[in-house]
């Protein structure tokens, strides 16, 4: 998971690169790096969990197949499902998936899922939307959010719910969600 951790470190360096007047390029790339740090953390760990170590290179190929939109949708599904369950409402999760998830979700898992959704949208804004300016406080708060998501992942990555989440990243579409 070196790439993920290096990206997070790079995000921090970029956000603090110019001590007096931070350049928009530095802040935008910092936010983007924070998102990609979390993205790589999730896909690398997921590929390692879902795929055997042999043949060599298989895990890298599986890792390459994960899609940003699919991960975001899975994060939203889990969080919406958790919220619905807390209110005794029906979830929009496929029944087979809902049956194997243990609700309520652990707080660190919710932290991770919401951070991914939030950071992906921030990444879109940082990379494509020039109508708004970034400031250092906002960039650092996004990096801090990514950092908290990293510790949250460390806490829950071996839990059954995360195993279900990882499988959902790969098979969500086939499990009946459009």
């Amino acid at each position, binding site marked *: 998971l070196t790439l993920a951790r290096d990206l997070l470190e790079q995000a921090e360096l970029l956000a603090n690169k110019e*001590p*007096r*007047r*931070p350049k928009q390029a530095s802040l935008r790339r910092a936010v983007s790096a924070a998102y990609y740090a979390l993205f790589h953390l999730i896909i690398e760990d997921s590929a390692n969990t879902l795929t055997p170590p042999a043949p060599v290179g298989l895990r890298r190929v599986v890792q390459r197949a994960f899609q940003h*939109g699919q991960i*975001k*949708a899975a994060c*939203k599904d889990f*969080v*919406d499902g958790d*919220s619905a369950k*807390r*209110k005794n409402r029906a979830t929009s999760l496929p029944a087979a998936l809902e049956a194997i998830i243990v609700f309520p979700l652990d707080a660190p898992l*919710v*932290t991770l899922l*919401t951070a991914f*959704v*939030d950071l*992906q*949208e*921030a990444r*879109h804004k940082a990379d494509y939307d020039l109508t708004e300016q970034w*400031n*250092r*406080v*906002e960039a*650092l*708060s996004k990096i*801090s*959010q990514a950092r*908290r998501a990293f510790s949250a992942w460390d806490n829950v990555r071996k839990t059954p719910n995360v195993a279900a989440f990882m499988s959902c990243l790969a098979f969500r579409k086939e499990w009946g969600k459009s």
Partner: protein
Amino acid sequence: MAFEMAAYIDYVVRMPTTRIPPSEPNLRGAASGDEALFFRDLMEKRSNQKYRLQFRFGEDSDSEPAVWITLFVQPDLNPSRETIDEIDQLSESIRNEVINSDFRRWPYIQVKTE
């Protein structure tokens, strides 16, 4: 009588017409009144001397209902770790309140300087 009828027809034909208005556009990402009230109350409750909050409804990059909550802070070129942690905790707490509300609208928190 014939004259009166012709005058009447002429009168009716000359009446200004009102066009049928185009149907009300379906505003994507628009919120119900209850939602607007919920968010207005939430912003009032969470705003304080240090942080001012604003919200805007819309759709996110997946075309799903979203709310952008802007947290206005004092400009700070080199914010301390404590400041960032405080903003982070406030953001997380607002985010959780919205997610666990009765509305299906994803909250995105952004931080702007005054």
